[in-house]
């Protein structure tokens, strides 16, 4: 009798939980799943949105075949990979180091944390303008004048106006902008780590570096994987800073996939082709995230 009552309570609780979840599930379905599904379908069609749904023509894999010879898309894929390879480890690595430093600080922890977090909540458009001035291409630019006068570099890089260095500048700005967000996540988890383990390590004679490498990092493994996943997804979605600073140029030097999608959708009105590129981007992000999850599980075992 008692057992029956308990299971009834559980069922009721479950129903209540679903009832609370329902609005956000419906929202996710309508605003996330349905657009993804529509985008997937559009990738296999030729469609002029002005003419409505009646004008859709199924073209099979034509949009995907076009990508194979499309310099803009191919360069964008390479640029996205380059961006991710540098942006993700640098951002998370620096965030981890800064979190460790902040964690050890006795005074000024809160104002410093606020300062580090500040770029993340600042508008990317205004930050971009400041960085454009910092990386002014002539020798009189703030960064370049340091390179010329301190490091004696006679011909400093032209940064955002150079095919060779534009992506470096964008990565530097993105790392600076996003790092604070990951610092806050890592620091919050760091502060929750058991102090007993550290005390034991100290008693065993472990130095600071050993403690950091052998205790802090392994204990933060789940947090770090979460940050890595988030940073990777964000790195594939990079768009705002590229669009504001270089518009993907010079030529295609900083063109990324989201920008290619934007170009084809809103400059050439080719929504079908843009959707096909979006599908490729989705597959890339999904694959990398899946591999990261697999690695996380493997390391947990």
């Amino acid at each position: 009798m008692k057992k029956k009552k308990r299971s009834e309570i559980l069922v009721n609780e479950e129903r209540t939980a679903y009832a609370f979840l329902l609005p956000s599930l419906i929202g996710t379905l309508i605003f996330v799943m349905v657009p993804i599904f529509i985008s997937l379908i559009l990738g296999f069609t030729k469609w002029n949105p002005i003419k409505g749904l009646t004008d859709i023509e199924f073209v099979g894999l034509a949009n995907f075949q076009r990508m194979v010879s499309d310099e803009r898309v191919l360069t964008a894929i390479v640029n996205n990979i380059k961006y991710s390879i540098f942006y993700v480890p640098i951002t998370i690595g620096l965030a981890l180091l800064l979190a460790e430093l902040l964690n050890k600080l006795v005074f000024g922890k809160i104002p410093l944390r606020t300062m580090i977090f500040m770029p993340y909540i600042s508008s990317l458009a205004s930050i971009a303008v400041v960085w454009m001035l910092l990386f002014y291409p002539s020798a009189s630019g703030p960064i370049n004048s340091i390179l010329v006068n301190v490091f004696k570099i006679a011909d400093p890089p032209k940064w955002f106006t150079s095919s060779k260095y534009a992506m470096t500048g964008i990565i530097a700005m993105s790392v600076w902008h996003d790092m604070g967000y990951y610092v806050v996540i890592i620091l919050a988890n760091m502060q929750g780590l058991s102090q007993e383990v550290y005390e034991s390590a100290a008693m065993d004679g472990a130095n600071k570096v050993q403690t950091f490498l052998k205790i802090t990092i392994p204990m933060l493994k789940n947090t770090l994987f979460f940050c890595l996943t988030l940073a990777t997804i964000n790195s594939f979605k990079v768009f705002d800073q590229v669009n504001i600073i270089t518009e993907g140029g010079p030529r295609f030097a900083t063109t990324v996939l989201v920008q290619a999608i934007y170009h084809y959708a809103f400059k050439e009105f080719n929504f079908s082709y843009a959707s096909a590129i979006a599908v490729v981007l989705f597959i890339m992000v999904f694959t990398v995230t899946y591999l990261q999850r697999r690695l996380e599980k493997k390391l947990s075992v």
Partner: protein
Amino acid sequence: MKKIVLVFLVIVIASFAAGTVFAASPAAQEPVTIRYYDWDMVDVSVINRFMEENPDIKIELFEIAANSDRTTQLDILAMSGDIDVMPLADGDQSIRSEQGMLANLDELIAKYNIDMEESFGIYNEWVKSGDSYYSIPYRTSKTAVYYNKRIFDQAGVEYPTSDWTLEDYKAKAAAISEWGKSNGGVFGTYSHTYANEWAILPAQVGKWYTEDGLSNIKDPAWVEGLKLRKELDSTGLQMSYSEIKASSTVINSSFLGEKEGMAMAGSWLVRDMKKTDKFPFDFEVGICSLPRWDESVEGIRGNYSVSALGIPETSKHKEEAFRFIIWLEMQNADAIAATGNVPCYLPAYNDELIETFVKGSTLTTEQAKFFFDTNVILTTNKVFGKEGASYVSIINEEVVPYFYDEVELEEVLDNIEKRVNELLKD
């Protein structure tokens, strides 16, 4: 009984009919709402006057920022049917009509007996696709050379005259730059980084397409035009392309801020000269026609582009939107001129209109006559013809590394030719 039923039926039918009439009356008086977006609005009193004269139409005005994303915003609105009167600029109209975004206006033009040739003349080139009209010319921007008389006087350089050539232009720019070296680094001239801005002068002789309808980017005029931009940059006669990009410099604040002696800019600079709170200046501005590309070019030369008003295919009130556009353009040229823009409606061109145009800008009516002179020979740096918008977009992508000193001109020309021809042959 039959009588009662009959009387009952009559009452029912009569009350139904009366109800319909009463219900229909307010609906008939309900005005149609037209949504009009623009980045450069005429005075709101003009719109109010239209609504007074046309009580069946209500105009809702929406001002959008004049930034590079404006076209994307407008396109999204047009696709969703949320806009009835759509501004189009810089040749956007051709790609939008090709994509079927704009409504064909031929029937409405015929219905309202609009003589397009007499009303808009040469400006019609910008709004036609084949023989059909897809928008109505609204404002035109005519490029001139603006010069700072104070700098010219101090540098001891003579003012340009309408018969000047490219060599004269370069010589004056060089003289001012030389003077500028000991006077705050003032440059001789300024050319902006807008798409195809480098093509303003060579457009006097250059052709974008070959006789076979393919890319003619290797036309000597375009080759020399690209070299000219690079030469002016590298010899320090103007702020370089990369510095303009990196510092987000704009013509109005640069020229009116006395950073250079001359600037090649559209007539819209007159609009900004009126905004003295935003762009304060205390020198006399001179205006001259464009220098002739070479001795073979005759007449007074100008470069132009046209902004137009179109009606998206998705609009539910095309005729009302058309009535508004025609009224705005053909009866309110003075209101358009008052904003510092040159209206496209040719029959309105007179001294009074020019006076309205220059009011508050420090320019004289005589100086501004250039913008309204129909004898000026106009060419354009934009590309008309098959895939014109994409042609410009490809050129813009390819020439930037050349202006940044990263690639050779031959490579740029080969890339443009290859990409444009692939597009044209497709």
